[in-house]
């Protein structure tokens, strides 16, 4: 458990110093842990556990947009679990359940591999439709067509800088929309 968390901290430090691959690996590494905790929270709230993907994506988006509040000298896991707990409570509340979520629920979670059966996430996709066309196109190109920023720029005859701006604005817009639903 300790080793796993030290590895996350190292990956996040590399990510902040510009290593995109490390960031990708970090997000992939934390996802099963977040998923297991989301499933546990849903079960405790009397909800079907296979609805976890929307919650997982909600947490990942918050992690992404708030990562500047992480202090690079501090361990990453407590920060991550605080964000995750906050988002999980919020998600369960939106489903009409008040559930006490303990921070240890995350720390003690053993990722369940292989990924359990889950209903595909739909919230992000639904909110994508309400974004400005340019942002939506860029997000879809990178997410669904797995195009790079460079390829996306070429495809839409945009500069790479403009693609980056649209991508970030799109992600920031998603969080506003997900909260407002």
């Amino acid at each position, binding site marked *: 458990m300790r080793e796993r968390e030290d590895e996350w901290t190292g990956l996040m430090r590399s*990510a902040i110093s510009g290593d995109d691959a490390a960031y990708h690996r970090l997000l992939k590494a934390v996802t099963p842990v977040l998923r297991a905790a989301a499933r546990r929270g849903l079960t405790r709230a009397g909800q079907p556990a296979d609805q976890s993907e929307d919650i997982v*994506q909600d947490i990942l988006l918050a992690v992404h947009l708030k990562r500047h509040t992480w202090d690079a000298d501090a361990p990453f896991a407590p920060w991550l679990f605080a*964000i995750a707990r906050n988002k999980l409570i919020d998600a369960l509340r939106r489903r009409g359940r008040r559930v006490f979520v303990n921070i240890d629920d995350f720390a003690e979670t053993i990722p369940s591999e292989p990924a359990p059966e889950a209903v595909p996430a739909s919230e992000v996709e639904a909110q994508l439709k309400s974004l400005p066309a340019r942002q939506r196109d860029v997000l879809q190109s990178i997410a669904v067509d797995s195009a790079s920023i460079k390829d996306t720029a070429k495809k839409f005859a945009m500069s790479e800088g403009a693609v980056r701006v649209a991508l970030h604005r799109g992600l920031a817009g998603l969080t506003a929309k997900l909260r407002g639903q």
Partner: protein
Amino acid sequence: METDQFIRTLAADNAHRARPVGFMLALALLLAAPISIAIFMTELGVRPDVMIAMRNPLFDLKFAVTLGLAIPAIAISLHLSRPEASLRGRAWLLLIPVGLLVAGIAGEMMMPQRMPMAMRMMGKNSWNCLTSIPLMSLPLLAAALIGLRHGAPTRPAVAGAIAGLLSAGLAATLYASHCTDDSPLFVAIWYSTAAAMVAALGALAGSRVLRF
């Protein structure tokens, strides 16, 4: 959307760097300060006998108390903008203005007084104090909340209350140069009540706008 696809999208945005919360808070407060100062200049103004008043340690103490509230509140609100943070270990900073007031009250008790205690406590400006401090706080509170929205406070009501204390501390610093009531007893009652009102408003607003 599949979570793997979503992760790829987030990773593609890794190059984006957000500004630190402290920078956003400072910027927002600097932009709002002229509004509060304008209210102060048009509605209140510095008291006419300020040069004489400055020789009175109890006049100077008011600024130590108000800044002794504002500065720790800024530090605490920045701390609380981190999701894993709690008040524990920092809340004592808010005792600084309380300690200063207690010391001031004790000091005043030992001095010979021309006015009875009840009169010093009630002063002449209590209503003005209760309205002016919250009024001048409002632009600063709005700014503080906008700046702190950039953070990730997991206790938004507490963070909002601290933002209220921060803005009340700054507004009270302006007000202190206007008010002719210098007794720490007056400050303890009326300034504190005004600050508590702004803190309550901050908590209410924070629980709505500081959630992320």
